[in-house]
C-alpha cells in the first residue's frame, strides 16, 4: 500500500514512490488504501461509458481499415483508463499534448465521433483538409494538441505551453504524453530539464505499455529502473501507477493537477499498462511476441476491473454492461456508415487539390501561388 502525500510535498521526501506502484482497486474490485476517494457513481458511469465507447470505436475503425476505408489506424485497447481517467480529472481549457494512443480523451468529453472518422477517412469533411495521416488529430476546441508523426516532440511543447501559462499568470495547466519507447528521444530529456529548471504547471505522463512496436520496454531501459525514477535526477515528484485501475488513474491525476494548478510544479507519472493489440494496423505482433501474451491481458482489463467495482457498488450490472456494449457497437457502425457519405481515403472525394497549398504560411507567398496555379491548371487538363 502506497502512501498519499500532501500535494505540496517536496520531491526529496517521496523518492521511494518512483519505485512503488499505486493501486486503488484490489482483485475483487474493492477500493483500498489512501488513494481511494469517494468518486460519485455518475463519474464512474462517465468513465465506464467513455472507456467502452473508446474500445467500440477502435474495433470499428480497425474493421474499416481492413475494408480499405482508411489507410491506417491505431488502437489503444487495454489502455483506455489512462486517457479517459486523466481527461476527466482535468478541466476544460487545460491543454493535452497526446500521442496517437490517447483517443480516450475524446470520449471522456463526448466529442462528436464523426469528426474523428472524417479525419481517419481523409474525406471531404476532414477538419484537417486531408493534410494529416489518419489519427494524427488536431482539435484545439477539445484541448487536444496537433499530433506529430515524430515521437516525443510534443513533450517539450507541453512544458513550453505550461511555461507560457505561468508567465501569463493563467491557471490552465498542460498535460504531456509519451510512450515508454519514446522516452529514449532527446526531446524527453529537454522536457525534463526545462521542467526541473522552470517548474511550470505540467503533468508529465509516461505510458509504459511495455512495447514499442516490436521492442520490449527493456530496450528503453525498463530493466534497469522504472520510468518514474527518471524524475529523481531532476527533483521532480515522480509516481508510478497501475494504469489499468481507473480509480487510481483518476485519483493520481487529480493530485498532480492540483499541484500544477497551485503552482507547486511538475509531476512525473508512469502509467503501468499493457499494449493488448497490435502497434497499429500496419503491424503484426505474432512476428515478435507469442499470441497468448496479448490475449492474457497481463494487468487485467481496465473495463472489467471498473465493471466489477461498479457492480460491487450496486451501480452497474452485467446486463446493463452487455446492453451498453451492443448499443455502442451499433453507434459506431452507424457513425462510420454516415461518414462514408463524405468519402473514404483515395476515392477521389478528398479535399480539393488547392487545399494542399493552404496553411503552409498564413499568407501564401508568390512561389506557392505559382505552384498551386500550375497544379490546378494541370489537374484540369488531366
Amino acid at each position, binding site marked *: 500500500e502506497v502512501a498519499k502525500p500532501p500535494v505540496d510535498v517536496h520531491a526529496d521526501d517521496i523518492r521511494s514512490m518512483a519505485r512503488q506502484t499505486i493501486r486503488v482497486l484490489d482483485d475483487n474490485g474493492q477500493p483500498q488504501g489512501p488513494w481511494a476517494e469517494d468518486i460519485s457513481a455518475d463519474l464512474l458511469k462517465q468513465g465506464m461509458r467513455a472507456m467502452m465507447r473508446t474500445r467500440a470505436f477502435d474495433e470499428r475503425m480497425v474493421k474499416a481499415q481492413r475494408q480499405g476505408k482508411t489507410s491506417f489506424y491505431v488502437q489503444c485497447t487495454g489502455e483506455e483508463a489512462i486517457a479517459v481517467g486523466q481527461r476527466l480529472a482535468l478541466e476544460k481549457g487545460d491543454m493535452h499534448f497526446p500521442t496517437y494512443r490517447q483517443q480516450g480523451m475524446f470520449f471522456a468529453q463526448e466529442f462528436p465521433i464523426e469528426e474523428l472518422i472524417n479525419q481517419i477517412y481523409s474525406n471531404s469533411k476532414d477538419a484537417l483538409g486531408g493534410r*494529416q495521416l489518419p489519427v494524427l488529430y488536431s482539435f484545439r476546441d477539445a484541448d487536444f494538441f496537433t499530433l506529430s508523426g515524430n515521437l516525443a516532440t510534443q513533450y517539450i511543447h507541453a512544458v513550453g505551453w505550461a511555461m507560457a501559462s505561468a508567465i501569463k499568470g493563467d491557471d490552465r495547466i498542460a498535460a504531456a504524453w509519451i510512450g515508454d519507447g519514446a522516452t529514449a528521444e532527446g526531446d524527453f530529456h529537454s522536457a525534463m530539464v526545462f521542467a526541473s529548471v522552470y517548474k511550470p504547471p505540467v503533468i508529465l505522463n509516461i505510458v509504459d505499455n511495455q512495447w514499442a512496436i*516490436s521492442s520490449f520496454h527493456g530496450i528503453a531501459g525498463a530493466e534497469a529502473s522504472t520510468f518514474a525514477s527518471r524524475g529523481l535526477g531532476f527533483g521532480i515528484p515522480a509516481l508510478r501507477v497501475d494504469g489499468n485501475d481507473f480509480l487510481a488513474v483518476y485519483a493520481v491525476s487529480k493530485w498532480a493537477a492540483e499541484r500544477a494548478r497551485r503552482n507547486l510544479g511538475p509531476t512525473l507519472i508512469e502509467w503501468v499498462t499493457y499494449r493488448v493489440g497490435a502497434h497499429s494496423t500496419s503491424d503484426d505482433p505474432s512476428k515478435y511476441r507469442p499470441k497468448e501474451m496479448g490475449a492474457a491481458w497481463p494487468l487485467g482489463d481496465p473495463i472489467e476491473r471498473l465493471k466489477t467495482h461498479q457492480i460491487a457498488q450496486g451501480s452497474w450490472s452485467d446486463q446493463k454492461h452487455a446492453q451498453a456494449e451492443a448499443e455502442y457497437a451499433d453507434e459506431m457502425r452507424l457513425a462510420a456508415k454516415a461518414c462514408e457519405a463524405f468519402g473514404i481515403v483515395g476515392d477521389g472525394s478528398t479535399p480539393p487539390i488547392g487545399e494542399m497549398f493552404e496553411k503552409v504560411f498564413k499568407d501564401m507567398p508568390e512561389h506557392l501561388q505559382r505552384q498551386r496555379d500550375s497544379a490546378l491548371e494541370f489537374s484540369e487538363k488531366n
Partner: protein
Amino acid sequence: MKKAGADVKSPQKNMTMIEAIRDAMDIMLGRDDNVVVFGEDVGYFGGVFRCTDGLQAKYGKSRVFDAPISESGIVGAAVGMAAYGLRPCVEIQFADYMYPAYDQITGEAARLRYRSNGQFTAPMTIRMPVGGGIWGGQTHSQSPEALFTHVAGLKTIIPSTPFDAKGMLIAAIEDDDPVMFLEPKRLYNGPFDGHHEKPVTPWSKHEAGKVPAGHYTVPIGKAKTVREGAELTVLAYGTMVYVAQAATAETGIDAEILDLRSLLPLDLEAIITSVKKTGRCVIVHEATLTSGFGAELISLVQEHCFYHLEAPIERVTGYDTPYPHAQEWDYFPGPARVGAAMQRVVAAK
C-alpha cells in the same frame, strides 16, 4: 573495393529490393567481423520493412540488435563504434526520423576525419527509406537528400534496382567514409512508375530483379544510362527513374534517361556528355522544389553546358508543402506531370 560485376557471372537469384538489401548486409556480416547492424526494431523482429529479417538469428545479438528510439543515439553510438574500428550499418526507420540525428550526422560523422586530420574516421552506413506514395503523410514520405549533399564529408547514394541496391550497399559498407544510403521504399517490391491505379510489376518479373548470389559492388559515383535518346536528357534517381521511363513511353519523346544513383560524389561527366548531346534537360525528384537537389543539378548543367542548351532546364518535383496525405497523388511528380514538362522543353525554341 572490388570492381563492379566482379563475380556478377555467379548464379543469379530473383530478389526484391528488400531481399537484395538484406543479402548485402548478410554477406558483409559474414565477411567482416567489424560489421554490425542495428536500429529500431531491426534485431529480433527484422525491421518494419523486414530488411534485416533473420540476420540476428544468424549472426547473434552482439552483431545485429535492437536500438532504443533515439536516432541521435543510434548515429552517435555508430560514430563511436566506427572510431573504434567497426563498420556500423544502421537503419533509420524512415528518413523522416533522421532529423533528431542531423547534428550527429552532419557535425560528427561527416567531420570526424577532417577535424582529426585523419586520426579518427567514420566508416559507417546510414540506411533510410525515402519517398512517398504509401499514404504515409508528411512523416513517412520525405526525401531529404539535399540536406545531405550540402554537407561536406557525406556521400549520398540511392539505388533504383535490387541489383544496384545490393552492389551499392556493399560498396557503402566497405567505404571508409560515412554513406547515406537512401532506399526508395516505393521500389522495395517492384519498379513503381507512378501509375498507382495499376498494380506494380513484381521484381521477380523484372530484369533488374536478377541479382548475383555472392559479393559484388556497384561503385559509388557512377550514373547509369537507362535509356539512350537524342531529344532531351532526363536526370532522375530512385523512384523517378521509372516515372521518367513511363513519361517517355507515353510522350514518345526520344529521351536519354540517366539514373544518377550517386548524388555525392556525382557523375558530372555522364551528365555533361548527355546534355551536350541533347541540348535539353529535365530534372525530376520527389523532394520539395526550393533548394532541392535539382537546383544543384541545374546549376552544374548551366555552368558546364551553357553554350549547348537550347531551352530552359525544367524541374518536376514535389511542391513546396509538407507531403500531404489525402492529396498525395497530386503531390507526387507522376508520369503525366513529367511528360508535360518534357514536351514543353522539347517544344521550346
